[in-house]
């Protein structure tokens, strides 16, 4: 009897254990939703993260859709565009690589997808690979001559190459096809570059009013608008624009950089340092780090200044080791700080040959000046001045070059122009312009 009971209890226990296990397995893997499964399903790329930006949510949305249907070509294009936007927002170039992968997937599904082709053109443009960008863009134009995005990409490349006539044509086509923030803001920037500040400011305001799906887009336009206002001496208006914009996007590095410049002009150096530091905490851009270093130096905090300059120098060495060639910003930085002057000329020449735009011409002319090659400097600064770009730095450089060349009148004219455009264009160079004007005036008297 005992053995039978024992066997029976054993079987009963086994059944219980088995059914418990089955229930457990069913619970975990059955067709219904369980909390733990819900948790494990929350793959990072599938769920909108906490405090996710609109862009992050967009990315997760497309990732989820594409996981269900990887054959959705438009889905891949949309994901690529969302990655591009994320790259712009975070300034993290790694997103361009992901965007490219997404566009390539779209093209593998349909090689004639115009938006994916424009996407490729845009990736290449972001990486400053303008020749490839133009190649892709031309493919898109051949397929769809009415696509607005492609003219934006083509115009951007023309702008970088200093071909402003071509940029005008492309941007006009873009505005015709799609009058919105993207096309207006591009047009506005070009108008500014070619000397029509009044109209540029009007069009940039129009761009901001048109609005955009991402806060970063309008923030960028407001930063540009503020820089135009600041660049033409309208400090009050510039600061107001920035204050309004920073209320919406308080950590946008472009806005903070512009605010640093405005505060520097107002001699509120502590506020300027704060703005630059906040911008650097988000994304250390060359211009911000250099401006912060200059301010520290001006205030006699040489150790802090050296820290910033060393960072720029070391990163430049790293980029050089990795095969990055001519760099206009570094050339300008070296010229400004009287260091590596022959390297500065070499880099600026290389840059100007590749992209003969106004700012490359200015950087090259300034590098020649610092190397005492005044004739070359004068020839080159003429190119920087040829579009009447309302940038006090270019005018200041021109004034200094003409002063060295002994052309007192022209020098005075440019220095006056620089100071009347924006009397506080630079914490060091604006006073230097004043001093040079005094010296030139004294020369006249003597």
């Amino acid at each position, binding site marked *: 009897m005992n053995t039978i009971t024992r066997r029976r209890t054993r079987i009963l226990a086994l059944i219980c254990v088995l059914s418990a296990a089955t229930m457990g397995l069913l619970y975990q893997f059955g067709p219904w939703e369980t909390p733990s499964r819900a948790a494990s399903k929350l793959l990072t790329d599938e769920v909108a993260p906490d405090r996710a930006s609109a862009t992050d949510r967009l990315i997760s949305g497309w990732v989820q859709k594409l996981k269900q249907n990887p054959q959705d070509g438009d889905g891949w294009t949309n994901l690529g565009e969302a990655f591009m936007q994320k790259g712009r927002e975070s*300034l993290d170039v790694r997103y361009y690589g992901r965007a490219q992968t997404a566009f390539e997937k779209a093209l593998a599904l349909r090689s004639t997808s115009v938006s994916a082709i424009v996407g490729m053109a845009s990736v290449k443009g972001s990486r400053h690979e303008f020749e490839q960008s133009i190649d892709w863009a031309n493919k898109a134009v051949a397929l769809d001559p009415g696509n607005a995005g492609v003219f934006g990409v083509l115009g951007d490349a023309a702008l970088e190459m200093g071909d402003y006539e071509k940029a005008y044509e492309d941007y006009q086509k873009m505005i015709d096809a799609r009058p919105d923030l993207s096309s207006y803001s*591009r047009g506005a920037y070009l108008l500014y570059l070619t000397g029509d500040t009044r109209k540029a400011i009007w069009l940039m305001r129009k761009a901001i009013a048109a609005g955009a799906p991402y806060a970063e887009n309008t923030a960028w336009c407001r930063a540009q608008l503020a820089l135009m206002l600041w660049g033409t001496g309208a400090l009050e208006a510039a600061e107001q624009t920035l204050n309004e914009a920073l209320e919406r996007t308080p950590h946008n590095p472009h806005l903070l950089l512009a605010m640093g410049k405005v505060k520097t002009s107002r001699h509120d150096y502590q506020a300027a340092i704060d703005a630059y530091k906040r911008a650097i905490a988000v994304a*250390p851009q060359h211009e911000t780090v250099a401006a912060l270093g200059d301010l520290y130096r001006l205030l006699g905090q040489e150790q802090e200044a050296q820290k910033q300059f060393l960072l720029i120098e070391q990163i430049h060495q790293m980029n050089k080791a990795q095969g990055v060639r001519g760099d206009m910003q570094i050339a300008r930085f070296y010229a400004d700080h009287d260091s590596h002057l022959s390297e500065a000329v070499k880099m600026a020449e290389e840059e100007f040959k590749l992209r003969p735009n106004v700012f490359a011409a200015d950087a090259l002319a300034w590098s020649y000046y610092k190397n005492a090659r005044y004739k070359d400097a004068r020839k080159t600064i003429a190119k920087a001045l040829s579009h009447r770009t309302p940038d006090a730095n270019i005018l200041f450089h021109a004034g200094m070059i003409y002063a060295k060349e002994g052309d007192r009148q022209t020098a005075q004219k440019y220095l006056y122009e620089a100071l009347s455009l924006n009397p506080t264009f630079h914490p060091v160079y604006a006073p230097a312009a004043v001093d040079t004007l005094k010296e030139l005036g004294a020369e006249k008297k003597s």
Partner: protein
Amino acid sequence: MTHRFRSGWPAVLLLAVFVVPHAWAHPLGPFAIDHYSRIQVTRVGLSVHYIIDMAEVPTLEELSNADRDRDGKISDAEEQDYLQTKVRDFARNLRIEVNRRALEWRIDSSSLTGLRSNAPEGSRSFPTVRIVTDLSASIPKDIHEIKDVRYRDENFPRRAGWKEIVVNPSPDLRLTNSSVPAEDLSAELTRYPSDALVAPPQFLQAELRFGSGIDASGNISLPALVVSLLTTTAVLIARRKRKPKRVLSDRPQSS
């Protein structure tokens, strides 16, 4: 040249982006700071395995912070000082709450690589700092049941990077809801998947809810109930079976 843009019709908001040229925004170089947290919660305490991995630009910034005597070299003492300061800062900026009550971290261990580059002179590789630390916190005695845990990483706010939080399964608690996954995507920031469908995670906070057969909303889940009832029955039956065994073994003694 006089140009005038013909402005067209009022703008239509389109989702297709290609907004604003960005060729003028130049980050200095690789500047991302990647975050990784692996959280584990048990009845007695919480722990987090926390990693910060910096790209070249922040590494260079840190180097100049760590080099106190500015001799261009990082000594053992400077490295230790730097690590301790950093880990203390990290711990302070990692907020943790159990049942909405804030707890303090204990630093159990910490290590650092990359501050002193072993790369030979003129090498193409540049140092990148990686700091790994293990933190823990005890559950206060008066918290008898852990209902929810909130975690927030406030280190390097708004700096771009891979921001991953994973939650380990708890041996003695049932996780009923989690805002972060259990799956590690990057093998602790050592292998980043290049698949376009794995977007860099952007998690900086996690919310975990726990229950024992009772889910977050207070309902007893049916499967959990059945499983526990069946298991209890099985245990009871198994125990019953031991009784005759004892009787049998007693027999020779009694006879």
